[in-house]
């Protein structure tokens, strides 16, 4: 029902619209499903973040060992399996927290992407954890994106999630 015409001029109040901070060149992509290149770049950035965190943790551990016994100090030499396990756990934790809290990791933030559930809302923590586990355990599943008409990776198909272009400013969804 339209608002009343208080002046009797026949004019009606026009619907309100909200100004957006999205650049004009990005608006054709806004809200559509992201493709392989953007998601690979975002994953690369996320991998770098986790690698940097892992390196910082390693250096911190080495510093603690040096402070504990500097005479017999040697750099820790973890096996590849332990490194892979710790790095995987860190990646799962990082992805789960970021997707459940903000809908985007730092890599997604840089590339203007957002991970959403099938309903369009943010992923629940359990689904975010499951998606992170699947991404870490089966990373090659991302190459299903070009074959999918809806740009879905394997973990998107399994968990009914999606990654969309979203250039709007980051919002915490806690």
């Amino acid at each position, binding site marked *: 029902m339209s608002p009343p015409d208080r002046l009797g001029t026949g004019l009606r109040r026009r619907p309100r619209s909200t100004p957006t901070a999205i650049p004009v060149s990005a608006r054709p992509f806004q809200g559509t499903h992201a493709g392989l290149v*953007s998601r690979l770049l975002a994953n690369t950035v996320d991998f770098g973040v986790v690698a940097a965190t892992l390196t910082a943790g390693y250096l911190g551990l080495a510093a603690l060992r040096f402070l504990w016994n500097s005479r017999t100090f040697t750099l820790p030499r973890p096996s590849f399996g332990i490194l892979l396990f710790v790095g995987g756990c860190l990646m799962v934790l990082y992805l789960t927290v970021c997707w459940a809290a903000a809908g985007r990791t730092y890599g997604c933030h840089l590339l*203007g992407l957002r991970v959403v559930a099938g309903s369009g809302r943010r992923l629940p923590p359990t689904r975010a954890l499951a998606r992170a586990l699947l991404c870490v355990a089966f990373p090659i599943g991302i190459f299903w994106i070009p074959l999918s008409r809806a740009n879905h990776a394997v973990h998107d198909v399994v968990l009914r*999630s999606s990654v969309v272009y979203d250039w709007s400013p980051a919002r915490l969804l806690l």
Partner: protein
Amino acid sequence: MANRGMGVPLVLLDVAIGTAMAGLAGLDRLRGEVSARAGSATEPAHQALRRAVELVPADRVRGLRVQGRARRRAVETAVQQRLSCTVPRLLDGVLDQVDLTALVERRVDLDRLARRLDVDAVAGRLDVDAVAVRLDLDAVVARLDLIGLAGQVVDGIDLPRIIRDSTGSVASDGISGVRVQSAEADEAVAHFVDRVFRRRAHPVPAPADDVAPAPQAGVVPAGLSAMDGVRP
């Protein structure tokens, strides 16, 4: 046969009018005969009367003329006074009995009159400031979609770019360029795969003016489910 339809009084009236006209015609002929016969006898008298008038002194005639003019003007003044009292009352009485509006609507071509009006001249005499003073600008402003206008202004001046330039935030031009290029690379990869598998090409993205707004609180824009979206 036609007379059967007429009443007896009308027939009598027609007979009376015909008789009177015949009588008048006879009298006219009689006047012509008399004038022709009496002209020779009255002409000397008419000439004698003119000579008598010419013999009267001019000052005597001037006095009579002045008296006659004064009397005539007095009569004219009296008649005008009577008319100035009587005519307005008479006119008021007539106008009270006539619906002038209905009469004008029925008899006058207002459109034709309006076409001959000089509207520019009327507008030139209009005091626009006085009209503006009477306007309720608050009510007019309340009807405006100021947020929408602000959105158009922001679109026109590319405010996000100005903010990025002034604040140097993380979403700089470099990041925006990477985002756009990666999105275009996504399209290129998708089109390449479509050609390899001989699938139908994906639709072209909608123009910027018709694009769905940014997701609110992590919600994909209306009509775009996470499972049924297509590539840009």
